[in-house]
């Protein structure tokens, strides 16, 4: 795309002032963000064995005892 088109767009953007984001757009964008993030729901089942929380093996996500391994993170779930 040509630089002159960007020059024009930048100048109008700088002079335009505040974006008029209405409540309707605001809440719709939040809904879009939420929808994007939650693309998949994985259900995990737990058992309490001798007072300790244990995840049941899942084909969709790696779990081990009381921990969920998600990418490079290990999420340990404890009972309070």
């Amino acid at each position: 795309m040509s630089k002159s088109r960007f020059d024009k767009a930048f100048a109008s953007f700088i002079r335009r002032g505040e974006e008029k984001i209405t409540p309707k757009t605001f809440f719709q964008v939040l809904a879009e963000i939420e929808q994007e993030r939650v693309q998949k729901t994985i259900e995990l089942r737990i058992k309490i064995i001798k007072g300790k929380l244990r995840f049941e093996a899942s084909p969709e996500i790696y779990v081990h005892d009381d921990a969920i391994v998600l990418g490079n993170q290990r999420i340990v779930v404890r009972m309070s």
Partner: protein
Amino acid sequence: MPQVSISLPFDLTPQHLRVVLKYFEKTERLIPPEWKMALRAFDLLNKGTIKIERRQMSFQQFYDRHVDRPYADDFIARLMKLEDLEKAETLQQKTAFEILAMLEREGFYKENLVSSEYLAAYCLYWWISFAKGYRFELSIFRDLKASGIAFVAHDLRKRSERRSPYDLLVLRQVGDIKNTTYFLYSARALPLNRDFYITRLYHSQRRRYLTVVLMAKAAWRRLNGAVPTALLETAASLFPQPVQITFEGQDFVIVPFDLWKDKVKKRQQEEI
């Protein structure tokens, strides 16, 4: 002129690039999915790279070195001297044009430098976001002070404090003040874990901006108010009445700024 080359992140698609241009050309015509895509595009652009002679840096590092460091402190100092913050818009525009001129003068934004328009777009997006954000923040601080609300705020004049984990403390609750676009950017990129957020929305019927406070449900409970619950899809129909929404499993209450101030003031007087 130094030898300069620019690379965009591989996951930035032609669709992202089109929506970046539309953001600058016709912000108000962006539909919600395009807003989401524009916010994602500016996030991805953090990872763009610029090579100046042998030195390579990300767009984020470039912005910090060539825009934030040379322009931010001076802008904040001038902003704080203004008695009438309405005049700050002229200062914001003047500085934005200076930044654009600097990018051209230094050879970072030019016709035959591939993708340099996206480096310029990135710098302008963040500059305008910064300038609008601090104009809004300062107006809120002045309003709270004039309203007799007790609060502790970070010092805008200090770069390190501008990067503090939160902007202000009211009734032992931590809060941030964000202009609307930056609030949406943060909602996309980061967890909303402050007790409250002060932002603003444009009320078409009243043809003006209304400042609102988005509070975690627990923070609102402390101010003792009951509100109706709505889905994100229907919340706008209740605006500007207080309304409770759920976003990513977390409950928030969104209330007009003046109502929030009344509640805070009442609670602070009870605590004396």
